[in-house]
């Protein structure tokens, strides 16, 4: 490497290596900046993090700390200002809109806080939506198993408006699982639900990881929800400030209190 290169690049470190082969997704040196100059806001500030296959990760942090931004950038919905994002070993920066779309359809599952479903399609069509869009049949046995798991067998022909909030969210979970994606992103999936229904959804997500071997990343504010995960990442001001393994609700609450001080 020539001295000249060292001067012009913003960092003197060599480019970080791509993530290991047991990572479902990762970001390396990821930054996301809104605006420029004095008014620049760092939504993400040099974040490097890996999500291992078969692991359930929760992301916590105060509002505006960059949780959603991190998720959107790994999921190919938004672009990093600098750094790299990988899904299944593929660097997203190298993909065009069409490839990103196909990647989201085949490798990524989404569960949003609300309005997860297409109102004109039935529950079954909503579940199979990523497959239908790709003109694929999918794994019928797998889909039957998911539907069984989320207890939706007798609701398949209903439209979203005929389903309760909890049922809608179960459909969303089933959809996220349907194409057997490499990773599932959930942005406050229980934020709009009462605690009983929320518990139900979280149980399903937990089982998807434990029993079905899926990988899930979930943004949440709720320590009880976060306790369902295998590990918790704490974000603040666009940086990962801490990590906790084997969380319990009490541990999380204690930790949040300590952060608050």
């Amino acid at each position: 490497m020539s001295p000249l290169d060292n001067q012009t690049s913003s960092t003197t470190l060599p480019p970080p290596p791509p993530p290991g082969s047991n990572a479902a997704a990762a970001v390396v040196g990821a930054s996301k900046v809104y605006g420029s100059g004095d008014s620049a806001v760092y939504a993400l500030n040099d974040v490097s993090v890996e999500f291992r296959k078969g692991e359930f990760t929760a992301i916590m942090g105060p509002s505006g700390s960059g949780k959603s931004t991190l998720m959107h950038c790994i999921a190919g919905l938004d672009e990093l200002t600098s750094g790299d994002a990988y899904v299944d070993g593929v660097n997203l920066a190298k993909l065009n809109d069409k490839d990103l779309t196909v990647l989201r359809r085949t490798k990524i599952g989404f569960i949003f806080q609300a309005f997860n479903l297409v109102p004109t399609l039935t529950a079954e069509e909503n579940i199979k939506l990523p497959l239908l869009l790709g003109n694929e049949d999918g794994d019928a046995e797998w889909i039957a198993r998911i539907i069984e798991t989320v207890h939706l067998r007798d609701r398949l022909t209903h439209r979203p408006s005929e389903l309760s909030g909890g049922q809608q969210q179960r459909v969303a979970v089933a959809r996220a699982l349907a194409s057997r994606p490499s990773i599932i992103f959930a942005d406050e999936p229980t934020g709009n639900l009462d605690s009983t229904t929320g518990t139900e959804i979280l149980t399903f997500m937990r089982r998807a990881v434990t029993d079905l071997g899926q990988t899930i990343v979930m943004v949440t504010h709720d320590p009880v929800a976060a306790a369902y995960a295998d590990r918790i990442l704490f974000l603040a001001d666009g940086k990962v400030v801490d990590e906790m393994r084997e969380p319990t609700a009490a541990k999380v609450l204690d930790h949040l209190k300590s952060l608050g001080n």
Partner: protein
Amino acid sequence: MFRIALKGVLARKGRLILTSIAVVLGTAFLSGTSVFTATLNRTFDNLFSDVFKNVNAYVRSTEVVDTDFGFQERQRIETSLVDVVAEVPGVDAAAANLQAFARIVGKDGKPLGNEGNGPPTFGSSVVDSKADIWQMSQGRFPEGMNEVALDEASAEAGKFVLGDTVKVITAVGSQEFTLVGIANYGDVRSPGGATFALWDVDTASSLLAKPGLIDAVIVVGDGTMTDEELTAQIQAALPTGKNLETITGAQITKETQDDIKTALSFFGILLTIFAFIGLGVGSFVIYNVFSISAAQRQRENALLRAIGASRRQVTLSMLMEALAVGLVGSVLGLLGGIGLSAGLTALLKAIGVDLPSSGLVVGTNTIVQTIIIGLIVTVVSALLPAFRAGRVPPLAAMRDTALDTAGKLRVRLVLGGTPLLGGVALIGAVIGGARTELLGLAILFIFIGALTLGPLVARPVALTLGRPIASLRGVTGRMARQNAARNPKRTSRTAAPVLIGVALVTAVTALAASIQAEIRGVFGEQFTGDFTISSEAQGFGGLSPSLALDVAKIDGVKQATGIGQSVVEVEGKGRFITVINPKTVEGIFDIGLLDDAKVTSLSKSGVLVSEKTAERDNLTNGSTIPAKLSDGTQVDLVVEGVYANDQLAGRYTVSSELFEGTTVSRFDFGVYILKTEGTDSAALRSDLQKLVDSYGSGTLLSKDEYIDKQAAQVNQLLGLIYGLLFLSIIIAIVGIIITLLLSVYERQREIGLLRAVGMTRGQVRSTVRWESVITSLIGAVTGILLGFVLGYVVILSLRDQGITKFELPISSAVTILIVAFVVGVLAAAYPARRATKVDVLAALNTM
């Protein structure tokens, strides 16, 4: 509240523009029509005040025959009157004026001008006098039987130069002349694109009228007295008892200008009908846009209500917005209309109607009318949505987005079903013998019923029409189908312009197809000959009566007869009258005489009348009908027979002998030919063609070709309808575009979600496109069905006119469906692009 409304309008410029476009469309046609008609009138006003600017007095006959269609035949006067008038004190110059059908034949043997449709072709007298409007720009005035002059535009079009031989067709046949002069009409090269062949007065009289007769005397005074005094002087000097009158230059100018206006008014009325249909259809688009925007603002309006705005205030703020939209739209429509009318003028020029340009006339009344009508239509269209907006319960602020259902099913079923059934019942009543006029009401009822029931049927129809698309296009097709069905009111309002346009077009096509079938039947039965020679110049000019005589002389022709038309005055009203030659018509053309009357025995003053005329006027054989020929000759026509079918022969049929010894100039519109048995058709045809060529006018056709051509005349009606179709297509496209744009806007979140879970841009586009196609097809399918009913009703109303066959225009229906499909695809282009541009993150963030 007013300020809130204004802010609301300004904050959503996009919606303001979209809504305005709907208004612009409606009003542009209106103002375009108004500007165009005013411009045309002004042009002719200028032309004739220019032409008659030196004329102080005008002498003519008082005897005139007016007909149903605005045709006017005035009796001619004696040429010798020119000299009488010239001697009157105060007269500087007097000149003969004579004008009638004549046609210049080009060097290629084809007549100049467009026979049948296009400006007329004339022959006229010309004399070197201050009083003559024509002045030579090249060469000299023609003199004698062998010289002619042409108007400058025709000379140029035919590439004629002085000294050329020019063939001209007139009532007495075609003749060749030497071109000695090229003339201007006042300040223009030729008035209104008409062609003119000019002769000296005596030659013109013998070719165009009868020797010794002219139309009028044009007088230029010497300036010693006013026009009124001069006119009185001349009138006093004229021989009495000859039905002569003298009018001033101002009067003849005004009369000519008014005549032209009357002739053009039909055109203006037609355009205005189009404009109002456009406005009516456009108001559906406006209504739709306001409804959608009210639905989308339900939450906002509910919030206003929740924080204390009254119903009235919410409604008023919507109406205020409508007023703003109406104003903007009308002003833009006015401007658009001016552009449209400039386009129409250019179009006229392109088809050969060359008019001296006097600039576009944008009258105050055009401006006021456009803006007021635009405002009224907009505000009225917004009334219902505005009242509905006011009724939004404050609680809706907490509810989810706009949901529109077809409203109270029962109420709508009653509101729509009642007029629909009423309309059907009326049709039934008319079939059963009730008054035909009731059919108009029936049509209105059926339309109201259909449009009211629209939202009820929109969903099932959308789902049915969308089924093949859903199964062919996978999940995008399925979503398109559901999207088209999810807002039934919106879908039916969007499809309404398509429905109305298609229904009108289908109805008229059905009518045309039925008339054609009728024509084929009638001509096939009545015309038993082999060939015809026909003139395109319907009602004005035509074939020389000598043509039929010459045809009869050709070897291989067994029999030939000419049939013509003239105008007579019966009971003070001008009537078209069919003129036959009773000696030759038998065996070629069967007019269908009843009982055992024989056409061959029709006498000089005999008349055959149609059965309907006989019934109406209580005529039987031997009854007399006092009539006046167009040259003023009085005759008592004696009924000598009654015929059943009046489609070809009209009300009255007389013998050509009736006109012998009168000064009426007569033409045949057709010569009908029967060949001798065993004659080779091809050889005979070429002989006949040679004769026709030597006459320079007329088209030779076989029986089959002739019948095809008669049937094809109905296509002119269709041309008109395609204009209408085009108009409604444009409005429908704009309506669909606007609705789709608003729907895409409304469904941003959904689109964002779909994009997030893996829908490609292409799939987004395809969803919008198929929704558009389904919507367009809903309009087309229902429109075609409605159009069939409408067409049937119109034909029912014409049963007294002898139209009995009802033909379903299946091929046109297929064409319309294809057009509707294309319309759907085209209309979706822009909204689909917008849909692919939806920002996924922004859409997700609003969740």
